């Protein structure tokens, strides 16, 4: 006799109230597993995106989204380093190394880490 049949037979012999409790529990576990599966899939898709395509050559779409984010947030985050995954902000810092560290700690070492100028900030050209 297979396990499922044994379980069914055993449960059928129990009082209705206990059967209902068992059914509720089984449904609860099933729902919980479903959520975990979705979370796992989302995370693995996210991780793959960031450790391969993002790290090597970001797609035109990602670059476009990122440029839109940089424009929209220049006034807010300008004057510091920003760490981005696509167009999502991981964190900001005052130095490149600190900002890179944020990305590394987030598990995305190849995140886009760059200095974002303030809107009115002027750069300097050296001797050329």
């Amino acid at each position, binding site marked *: 006799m297979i396990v499922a049949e044994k379980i069914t037979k055993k449960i059928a012999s129990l009082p209705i109230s206990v059967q209902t409790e068992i059914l509720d529990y089984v449904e609860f576990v099933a729902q919980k597993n479903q959520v975990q599966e979705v979370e796992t899939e989302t995370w693995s898709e996210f991780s793959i995106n960031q450790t391969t395509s993002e790290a090597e050559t970001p797609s035109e779409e990602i670059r476009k989204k990122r440029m839109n984010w*940089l424009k929209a947030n220049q006034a807010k985050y300008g004057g510091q380093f920003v760490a981005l995954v696509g167009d999502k902000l991981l964190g900001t810092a005052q130095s*490149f190394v600190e900002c*890179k560290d944020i990305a590394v700690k987030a598990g995305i070492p190849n995140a886009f880490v*760059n*200095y974002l100028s303030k809107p009115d900030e*002027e750069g*300097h*050209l*050296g*001797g050329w």
Partner: protein
Amino acid sequence: MPHQLTFSQFAEYDAGQTGISVAASLKLNREPVCFQAKIDTGSTNCIFERKIGEKLGLKIEEGLPKYIGTATGRFLTFEREVTLSVLGFDFDILACFAENEAFRKNILGSYGFLMQVKLGLVEYEGKLFIGKYLE
């Protein structure tokens, strides 16, 4: 007291030319555009000719506007995200492209390049040692 640094790459440049010129390229998702660039510790940004950005297919003016000051004035650039390759290293950077076509320099400055590397220089012999800072 002696100090020691280690570098993963070594290159020779023409010490007879003005400045430290190295082979570099920029790319998006298509063919890279190759050129000679000068390493400039006095520049805040990596700044490139407009025509290089256009060869990459960029619409320069869609970038973030940024003025670059010089000893005699300032000029307008637009920052765009590109992948910079120098001596075997890739950097995903915000590069400044000069608005004016008359700007004919390619500069590797602090943001996007110098901040991410460590350099050793023997100018007399035209020797350049380079490694990524966070290696």
